[in-house]
């Protein structure tokens, strides 16, 4: 459907910005994501899974990236990583793809309406949360290479 298409486009644009395609000319890189269970924050889950898959495959990447979803409650509080229930009740849901080099923003998408200041606040919160995710990537890779 249209929603899946839009998610595919967002994922594709993020990956294209990060993968060093220069090293693989005339080559198609296909990324297949299968949703096993969806409990909310699906797009950022897909982004994180895509990054780990690209890491595992050994494709050359310029930087790591992660996805963080923020939900803006009607009273103005920011919830990170909302469940499906919280996303329904929220005034706006924002998803950001954040790169590991200087926490730059690779992709931003919003559902619902929010003011510019609120978006900036969500972005700042997402950038802080991204550090936790990057630490998780590092720990996973360390565990994998410690076995050999």
């Amino acid at each position, binding site marked *: 459907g249209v929603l899946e298409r839009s998610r595919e486009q967002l994922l594709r644009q993020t990956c294209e910005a990060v993968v*060093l395609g220069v090293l693989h*000319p005339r080559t198609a890189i296909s990324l297949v994501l299968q949703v096993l269970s969806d409990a909310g924050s699906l797009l950022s889950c897909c982004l994180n899974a895509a990054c780990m898959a690209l*890491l595992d*495959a050994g494709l050359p*990447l310029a*930087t790591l990236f992660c996805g963080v979803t923020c939900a803006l409650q009607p009273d103005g509080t920011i919830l990170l990583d909302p469940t499906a229930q919280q996303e329904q009740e929220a005034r706006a849901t924002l998803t950001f793809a954040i790169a*590991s*080099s200087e926490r730059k923003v690779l992709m931003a998408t919003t559902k619902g309406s929010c003011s510019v200041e609120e978006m900036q606040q969500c972005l700042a919160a997402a950038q802080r949360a991204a550090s936790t995710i990057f630490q998780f990537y590092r720990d996973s*890779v360390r565990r994998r290479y410690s076995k050999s």
Partner: protein
Amino acid sequence: MAAERGTAAEALVGQVVLPGDLLLLPAHYDEDAEGERLRLSAGAAPQGRLLCGPGLRRSGAGLLVTTCGLLRHRPGGGGAYWVDSQQKRYVPVKGDHVIGIVTAKAGDVFRLDVGGSEPASLSYLAFEGATKRNRPNVQVGDLIYGQFVVANKDMEPEMVCIDSSGKSSGMGIIGQDGFLFKVSLGLIRKLLAPKCEIIQELSQLYPFELVIGMNGRIWVKAKTVQQTLIIVNILEACEYMTAEQRKQALAKLSGN
């Protein structure tokens, strides 16, 4: 957070690095600290040119890591840094010895599947003792052990089965029977290291012939089919077994 500004390359040797990490080289490391400075210890700066191996790219101040893995360093001759990563996909590199499967014969050239993104080409004259009259007997589906003479990202890879002096030195068509299977590139590098324990232990079990291709393919042939399959299973399992478990498995087999 420290990795954003860049950490000294020597500090991370032997540790896991991730894409996006910036490594600073010794010469630039000094420049970052203070502006112009008279370097009293001339031995600090490395002589010769630094080699930037797979998984690293030069970027302004230092080296940018592009794949995840362990950072390795070789101090000889100017020094070399590279990232040791485990992957299963092979990218053709010039000089690599690989096992290819013949998929088509197009006039004077054979097309081989080497596991890369493009099939490699092999001329019929690239065998020892081959002339226009004396063609090698290669059929579709044969296995060929050869090396890359052209392999870059812009051109189709080309292979030959002779070395620079015209001798075959072990390359050519791989004989009948035997068993071909695929493993990860990390295991291949482990097996090809000098004095590999796995090969030494296996050779005490049964006599066998072994061809190892850098593209992740291994061909094994032993006296009977059963022995061949046992060796194949052990080599495939070696990826996940520790040295202890391997010794136990081999002891059980040689006991039987």
